[in-house]
């Protein structure tokens, strides 16, 4: 209800501090959590139509996890549930739970806004705001009440460098973001998503609208980002999944068919449906 005050009290990592789950101390040390995002028996419904069936999986910290599967298999729906983007749709409901770093995202004490600040998202279609490049990147900070110029300047440089856009954009920071090329716009959206230092980065087919060169750049970027962020990427492109992910989850008709190390999923899948899909027999 009062987002502003809720936001100022809730610094990005205060949730993990607040949580009293014992695994937390293990994560704080040298070892990274293997169940950073824990999805437990998750069902999801659009009205009466069930889109996800009993999904359970653990997504490890600071790795790239790819969701693959044919269109309509629910991979995007699951991804959009991780930052509760699906709440915006009328008539949806869920069963089961999603636990991020030890705390349920559906915890009534969690402000959905602070959740989204911890979980950045990049969309299939790049969606820069009709503002300058600079204002696009500082948008997450501005809505969080940060208006200090030094902080904003520093963020713009860090994010653009992080998104490998600094060299191309540093001379035109105050030009409209809509003058960028398609690939640059998508990298700008990545820069915006990482501007407020989220813990998790969700990418919903980030390269589907890009040409091969821009795709290569974004993939390189994913590589370099994984040391700081836990990345979940939805992709239709199986080569992309093999190239940039450590783990791959294969979905089919709303069910999680197989989830394992990427090399295993693509090299020696345990399920027949996975094999059919990755060898191109359907989908």
């Amino acid at each position, binding site marked *: 209800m009062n987002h502003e005050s809720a936001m100022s009290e809730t610094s990005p990592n205060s949730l993990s501090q607040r949580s009293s789950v014992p695994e937390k101390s293990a994560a704080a040390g040298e070892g990274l959590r293997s169940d950073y995002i824990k999805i437990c028996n998750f069902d999801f419904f659009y009205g009466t139509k069930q889109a996800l069936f009993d999904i359970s999986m653990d997504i490890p910290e600071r790795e790239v996890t790819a969701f693959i599967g044919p269109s309509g298999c629910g991979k995007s729906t699951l991804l959009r549930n991780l930052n509760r983007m699906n709440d915006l749709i009328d008539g949806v409901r869920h069963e089961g739970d999603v636990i991020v770093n030890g705390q349920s995202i559906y915890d009534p004490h969690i402000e959905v806004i602070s959740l*989204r600040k911890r979980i950045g998202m990049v969309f299939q279609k*790049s*969606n820069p705001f009709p503002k300058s490049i600079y204002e696009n990147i500082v*948008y997450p900070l*501005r809505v969080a009440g940060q208006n200090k110029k030094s902080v904003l300047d520093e963020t713009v440089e860090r994010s653009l460098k992080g998104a490998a856009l600094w060299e191309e954009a540093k001379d035109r920071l105050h030009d409209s973001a*809509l003058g960028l090329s398609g690939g640059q716009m998508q990298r700008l959206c990545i820069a915006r998503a990482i501007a407020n230092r989220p813990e998790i980065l969700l990418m919903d087919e980030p390269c589907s609208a890009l040409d091969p060169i821009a795709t290569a750049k974004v993939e390189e970027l994913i590589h370099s980002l994984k040391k700081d962020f836990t990345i979940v990427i939805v992709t239709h492109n199986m080569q992309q999944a093999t190239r940039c992910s450590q783990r791959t989850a294969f979905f089919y008709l709303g069910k999680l068919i197989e989830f394992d190390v990427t090399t295993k999923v693509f090299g020696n899948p345990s399920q027949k449906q996975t094999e059919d899909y990755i060898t191109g027999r359907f989908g």
Partner: protein
Amino acid sequence: MHATQKDDSLTRTHAAAGEPFVWLTAMGLTLGLLMVVGLLGIILANGIPVFWPKKVYEVTLKAGVKNPVPGGGESFAGELVQTRTKRIPVLTATGEVEDDQTELQYFVGNKDVYGINFVFVSRVDVAKLSLPKDIYAIERMEYGDAFVYPVDLALADGTKIEAPGNPSFSSRFADAVKTSNTLRDEIGHIEKIQIGRINSKINDLKVKRGESQDAAAQIVQLEAEYEELAAKARTLRQEQQAAKFTFRAPNGTTKTQPVSEVVGFYQPNTLTLLQKSGIFFRNIWNFLSEEPREANTEGGIFPAIFGTFVMTLLMSIAVVPFGVLAAIYMREYAKQGLLVRSVRIAVNNLAGVPSIVFGVFGLGFFVYFVGGGLDRWLFSDYLPTPTFGTGGILWAALTLALMTVPVVIVATEEAISAVPRGMKEGSLACGASKWQTIQRIVLPASVPGILTGLILAMARGAGEVAPLMLVGVVKLAPSLPIDGEFPFVHLERKFMHLGFHIYDLGFQSPDSEGAKPMVFATTLLLIVLVVLLNITAILIRERLRKKFATGAF
């Protein structure tokens, strides 16, 4: 056989390609354009000539024809207004036949002398038309224009200048008129502004007399000031009226009038094109900048222009926040269901309610209820004289805002729903709240759409007359809604409006024939004002559209 088949297929293709429908739609557009062009053409053709100086003819009638101008002998002088054909039954040897007869209408002026302004004569009765060079067309404070032959000019210092055969007469006369006009402005300033200010102070003090001891003393002092100013004005007026002008009307009547009665003059039959243009633009300027005279049929319409402008502006200020907030709630927050659907239908239907109904509502709610309440609460000292409890520009603007709010709501809703979903999601994914998203992303991107709504609202509001007649428009407002007197913006004042002015001129004026050209000129101005307001809004919208162009979607 073969050929018929071919023809068949040809017609079929035409029909199938929908060409008759293309023609039909093109016809619809042509009809629309023709109507617009025709409307503007008629208004321009009737409105513009009002300002163009016309020649004054001396019409000599055939012997035995009755002169329509009283006491006119066999000739009269006037401007040709129109030529029309009249069918008159004529008895001949073979029986009754109809004969077409051309009739000429002349504006003869000199209403104080003749008692009439317009005359008709048959063309067959006219013996001779001439253009006397020495005739003057004089614009006066009262009784309208006069077409006269000057006789002499008696200045205040006793100098007498004879007119006939004196080439310097017109320049001397012009000087005298200029002096008188300067004095008139000065008197106007004293009477309207200085004395008006003292009057309002005295009124305020009279109301508070019970509370304060020295109010009475102050009133006495102010009344002394008032007397002083009034005396000054009287002196100036005497000075202004000292110079006398004697003229002879074409019917032979000689009359002497103070020069102060004369506003301007020209010699209509000796003007060059350049001089005519000069008079044309001076007339337009006077029309735009002066206050009306003679029951609104003479002088300018500045108060009406200003009133319309201020009211439209006030209406825009009221209607935009009201409409935008309602639209945001309906589109972004309200749960889309039966209730919202019915509210939306109700709002759309509100746009179809006859405007007079809004006028009645405005009178009952704004004027009597809100205004009356305000009077009892804040201005009880002035009662029973109402301050806000009577029609005023604020109530008129609010009534029109209420009338036009559906337009803004509909336009805003459309603009908001046209903002790409991806952009809203992007903002929410950045951790923005719903309100922040609306405020920072949705609203800026919908501003062009909101302005479209405002443009439509202004176009409707500025031209509306019926509801205004109930909530504050008057035939003649003594003062403007915004002036130099504290607190500068007087929202409670009654005001003049171009639309009402047109109605008043055309249907309420004692001399509706004489006012007809003014009706068209005023209509032209109303159109120009609405177009100007709209163009301003369109320019702002285009600038914003460029700024928020969302090429990526």
